[in-house]
């Protein structure tokens, strides 16, 4: 499948995705670690938090990819319409 053309916003979102993945992983693992300290359940909440963070990061990437694909399809349709009119 051909990717692009990417807009300026797409580029910015792509550069943000990596950081979003890292932040979601750190936040969820951190929350799991905090719960472990509180409840004395080490290391289970940390493991569950890290897994949840990974899933959240993946979800964000998949959602962004779907959004960009939809935007691309809309853009291509609009371009085809323009060409048809010419």
């Amino acid at each position, binding site marked *: 499948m051909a990717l692009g053309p990417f807009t300026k916003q797409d580029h*910015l979102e792509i550069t*943000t995705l990596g*950081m*979003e993945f890292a*932040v979601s992983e750190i*936040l969820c693992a951190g929350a799991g670690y905090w719960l472990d300290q509180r409840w004395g359940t080490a290391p289970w909440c940390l493991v569950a938090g890290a897994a949840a963070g990974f899933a959240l990061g993946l*979800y964000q990437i998949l959602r962004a990819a779907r959004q960009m694909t939809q935007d691309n399809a809309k853009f291509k349709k609009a371009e085809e319409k323009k060409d048809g009119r010419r």
Partner: protein
Amino acid sequence: MDVAEIISHHILDHDWGVTLAGFRVPVTTHTVTLMAVSLVLLLGLYWISRRHQSRAGRLLTTLTEEYVSFIRDGVVLPNMGPEGRSFLPYFCTLFLFVLFCALAGLIPNMKTATANISVTAALALCSGGLILYCGLKFHGPIGFLKGFIPSGTPGWLVPLIFPLEIISMIIKVCVLAIRLFANMLSGHMVLICLLLIIFVVGQMHIAAGAGALLPAMGLELFMTCLEILVAFLQAYVFTLLTSIFAGSVIHTH
């Protein structure tokens, strides 16, 4: 010579510890820089907004008008649509504030306030507040919450997707803060490390230190120019990302 101590002294905030009538006033290098930048912007923009007879004054007024047009036509309107027009003052302030904070760090004896996570977190919180306000203003509380559910989501997936989307939005705001903080911090760390090359090499032999002087200063000059570019770039990215997130809340699919 303790390299780590020198780097942390250059980067970290310093509390001057002023106590007035038993009340501790948090005067730190970063708060002083923030105050100085705010004062310069306030007085400078007030002066520019007045009617000028001098050529320089008119030039500055024209430049500021161009700047506002750029933020309006290049950042706010493409991402937020006509609804974003009322938020233009916020974006103009945000860009200038982030830019001047970063540029202030390049002046000797001043610090980059945006290399402090508390400052960038406060800025990101302001942007988060704006995003929240946009959603509530244009869609109401129920419509705003409904906007978090992507179209075409099966009913049984909604309880799973909804919290994920809420956390995603919070993470996006966190990323805004971390991106600016990391860029500013790393830039200044590289600057001080390049300078330290001279002294570290000079400790081995004084002639080697003298030899390292020219390449290190050349790299320092290059990095300082790069820092000026990064200051503009990060101010633009912070403003643009805020407008994109606010726009995505206003125009939900």
